[in-house]
């Protein structure tokens, strides 16, 4: 039991920034975005970064992805694939007007967290299933991008300057991801240097998986009642 609590403590520290905020674009940010008419690069960039840094579903997934990535080069590769995936669907769906159901997309995002955690405890390997981790992170990146897009599409954004504003938002998302990743990589390095890491890794991933399933169930319930 003790090692599981150590895992919980470390996960909490790593994901702390996101726990302080609610997710989604709401309140004064939402009203700001709706009255914008024309190109406003920096505000959109800031809001993109804020959305990423405070988005616990994205951060949980990233934590799962880099859990066992010891080399910075691998972190960079996986983060780039994730960024490529979510940029494609974020830009594509807002600019082309594709619309997905926000609850269903967020449910799949919850599942992506559970999937990654299950892979981290060696679940797929033990079942004899081999999955290309890079393809999976790209694929789930596409879904996370849809999730980002649905939050923006709930607002009525002015088409005036939208393309450039979306570029700003997207760049902001990447900068936010870089900031969150930097902090996470540092904290993971710190955690790995403690003797408890090996022992608490399974417990931490079970917690990640639980969180993923809770997010998924929460969104499915939301889909059911709306």
């Amino acid at each position: 039991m003790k090692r599981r609590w150590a895992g919980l403590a470390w996960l909490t520290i790593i994901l702390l920034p996101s726990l302080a905020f609610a997710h989604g674009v709401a309140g004064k940010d939402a009203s700001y975005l709706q009255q914008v008419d024309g190109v406003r690069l920096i505000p959109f960039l800031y809001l993109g970064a804020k959305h990423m840094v405070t988005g616990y579903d994205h951060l949980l997934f990233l934590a799962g992805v880099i859990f066992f990535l010891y080399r910075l080069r691998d972190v960079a590769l996986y983060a780039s694939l994730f960024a490529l995936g979510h940029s494609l669907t974020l830009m594509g769906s807002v600019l082309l007007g594709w619309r997905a159901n926000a609850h269903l997309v967020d449910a799949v995002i919850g599942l992506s967290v559970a999937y990654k955690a299950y892979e981290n405890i060696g679940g797929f390997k033990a079942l004899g299933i081999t999955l290309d981790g890079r393809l999976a992170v790209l694929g789930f990146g596409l879904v996370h991008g849809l999730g980002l897009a649905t939050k923006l599409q709930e607002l009525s954004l002015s088409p005036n300057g939208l393309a450039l504003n979306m570029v700003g938002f997207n760049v902001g998302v990447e900068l936010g991801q870089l900031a969150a990743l930097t902090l996470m990589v540092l904290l993971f390095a710190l955690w790995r240097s403690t003797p408890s890491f090996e022992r608490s890794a399974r417990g931490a991933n079970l917690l990640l998986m639980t969180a993923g399933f809770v997010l998924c169930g929460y969104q499915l319930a939301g889909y059911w009642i709306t």
Partner: protein
Amino acid sequence: MSEQMPTRARTLKGLGLSLLAAAVLLVTLVLPAEYGIDPTGIGKALGLTALKATAPAPAQTVVMQDVIGGNEGLTTVQLGDGRDPVPLPNPAVNQDEPQAPHTETLKIQLGVDEKTEVKAKLSKGKMILYSWSVEGGKVYVDFHGHDPSLGDKFWVRYEEADGITGRNGSLVAPFKGEHGWYWLNVSDKPVMITLTVTGYQDKLVDYGRLQ
């Protein structure tokens, strides 16, 4: 990864544990707090369902009518979480005026088959509230607007009605011009029409009895 090699049984046990824990958390905490769905009653016992009851109203969208133009690109406004006021994309629905609205009242007597016209001179976008009623009988009415600078052939109709005894309402002038009522007494005795107009009309013009 851990001191034990991941075996099929061990990883499936982990999956099962996580699913079970997620289900318990969802049913006892998340669903009661977020949606007020509380099948076990534990959410209520913990006071979590109160969160749902007192939570600020979820974001709502209001559809805006394009009353005086300028809303074409923005017909819906997101209302946010109810804490911050939402700036309206088209604030022209509220018009500042230097003066208080003024009220004008007219009484018009119409004999059998007699007709008349009363019109409010209005600038574009100006608003009036009106109320008129008939004593002693019924009238035919044609409520319409007309821009005298474009000649006599251009006019738009707001309402036509026959055999009525009054109307109340409001009008925002769609263009600068004269906006008012043509009345014809369709009773077999004289009637008295009382008209009150309040608002930002330049003035009320009584055209008297028409031939």
